[in-house]
């Protein structure tokens, strides 16, 4: 029972990170009509930015600002490539996947060549934080608290933006029908850039929280997280935001349970096996495609 509660807490804090990434990923899919496979890789890159900034200052605000700024800037800098791609190929999400997969490889390879000589980076131990609550096997670290509560706050803010603000309305309008949106005078390119910006903002925040949760990062982390984020989006049904919420959390919990109850190196394979089975049974996702 204690293992269960402990892993449930682990799973929820990990899952809320997946949820944020799934939301950012889906937002770009819905609004810009692209599959940004390199999005989790950008987030890992922002973790490296956090790490670099932490060597000079331990001011939390500065770290968050640096992480968010780097993620937004790079994500928006990538946008013209996808715009050119759409001009050449039309809005073909599969071609956008091929291009973003190349970007992912590029980012991973650059990280493993240039950053920290390719070795994994470790965040300072007080950054991860002491456990703020513990009883038997159950321990809740400050990092987990940041991830869980920060994650919830970010999700709430995201849905507020999307459903309660003028810009959010425009984002949803384009995701439903971009032609009609342009006919009524909504600037498509500008709004698409906005979606990259919002995803970048989410990514930058996630990078800080992931750093606090995991305490380390490596060049290979992008591929690893990327696969899970994309798989969770497919399980939910591509572009389905609310489904992504459920599946992101479920994936985090399932993975943590596998780690808690099964032999170490197999736990990830188990998580992938579960995803695979659901994908094979329901290729359109559990909650239906909305893209």
């Amino acid at each position, binding site marked *: 029972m204690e293992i269960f509660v402990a892993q449930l807490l682990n799973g929820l804090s990990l899952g809320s990170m997946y949820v944020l990434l799934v939301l950012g990923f889906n937002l770009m899919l819905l609004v810009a009509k692209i599959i940004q496979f390199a999005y989790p890789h950008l987030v890992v890159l922002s973790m490296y930015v956090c790490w670099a900034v932490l060597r000079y200052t331990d001011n939390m605000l500065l770290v968050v600002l640096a992480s968010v700024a780097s993620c937004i800037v790079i994500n928006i800098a990538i946008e013209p490539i996808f715009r050119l791609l759409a001009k050449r190929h039309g809005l073909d999400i599969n071609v956008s996947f091929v291009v973003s997969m190349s970007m992912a490889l590029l980012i991973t390879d650059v990280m493993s060549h240039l950053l920290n000589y390719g070795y994994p980076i470790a965040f300072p131990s007080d950054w991860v934080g002491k456990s703020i609550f513990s009883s038997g096997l159950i321990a809740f670290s400050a990092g987990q608290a940041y991830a869980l509560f920060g994650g919830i706050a970010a999700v709430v803010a995201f849905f507020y933006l999307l459903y309660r603000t*003028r810009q959010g*309305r*425009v984002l*949803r*309008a384009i995701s*439903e*029908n971009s*032609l*009609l*949106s*342009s*006919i*009524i*005078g*909504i*600037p*498509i*390119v500008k709004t698409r850039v906005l979606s990259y910006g919002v995803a970048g903002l989410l990514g930058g925040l996630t990078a800080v929280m992931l750093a606090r949760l995991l305490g380390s990062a490596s060049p290979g982390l992008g591929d690893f997280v990327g696969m899970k984020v994309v798989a969770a989006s497919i399980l939910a049904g591509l572009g389905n935001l609310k489904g992504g919420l459920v599946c992101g959390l479920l994936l985090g919990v399932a993975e943590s349970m596998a780690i808690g109850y099964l032999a170490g190196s197999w736990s990830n394979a188990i998580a992938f096996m579960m995803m695979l089975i659901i994908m094979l049974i329901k290729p359109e996702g559990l909650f239906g495609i909305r893209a």
Partner: protein
Amino acid sequence: MKKNSMLRVEGISVSYGPVRAVDNVSIEVNEGEIVVLIGANGAGKTTLLRAILGVDKAQSGKVLFLGNDITGKSTDRVAKSGLGLIPEGHLVFSTMTVLENLQLGGYHNPREIDSNLESVFESFPVLRNRLDQTAGTLSGGEQQMLSIARALMSRPKLIMADEPSLGLAPKVVSEIFDILRDLNKKGYTILLAEQNAKKALEFGNRGYVMETGRVVLEGPTQELMSNPEVRHAYLGSNV
């Protein structure tokens, strides 16, 4: 009295691959007028409207709106400059509420949204009671009204309506035409593309007849109505 020209299309052509959908078409719409475009399905009416708005790119020719050359400009900028299109097939953002649809229509003048909403409700009292309803759950006629209302939210200088009667019950069609006529009385200039030639010719001041991408006839609607060819081809009467 010669009225001010609002929209001038000078010899535009649009092709989809080898198919020339609009071939060297010139039309003009003056301030305060109702101009109708009639022609069979596939005559190029919709393509012409889309080309004016910049959705389809014209290969040649020029579009002047309020004296400015808008050829090749992006659709959202053309729309912002005062051209409101009511697209074919009563298109609404079906997952969003009626209010949200209207707010989107007023994207470019956020400060006047409330006053515009009030004036829209005067023409469309039905919508006032349905503000929180999802647009996809409205009936076809209501969706068409929402589509018109949404266009009005941007205070357009020229309303282009593409087949507003398509797929609607005859009673609703009359209602829609009454609304459009009211709008014209309130000062809106209207360019209407319509397959239903009889209704359109009764409704408009001037008209253009399109066939396979070209304008084959033009003139005041009375003249067109008495033209034997038009009567034969579009009004179904045996002369």
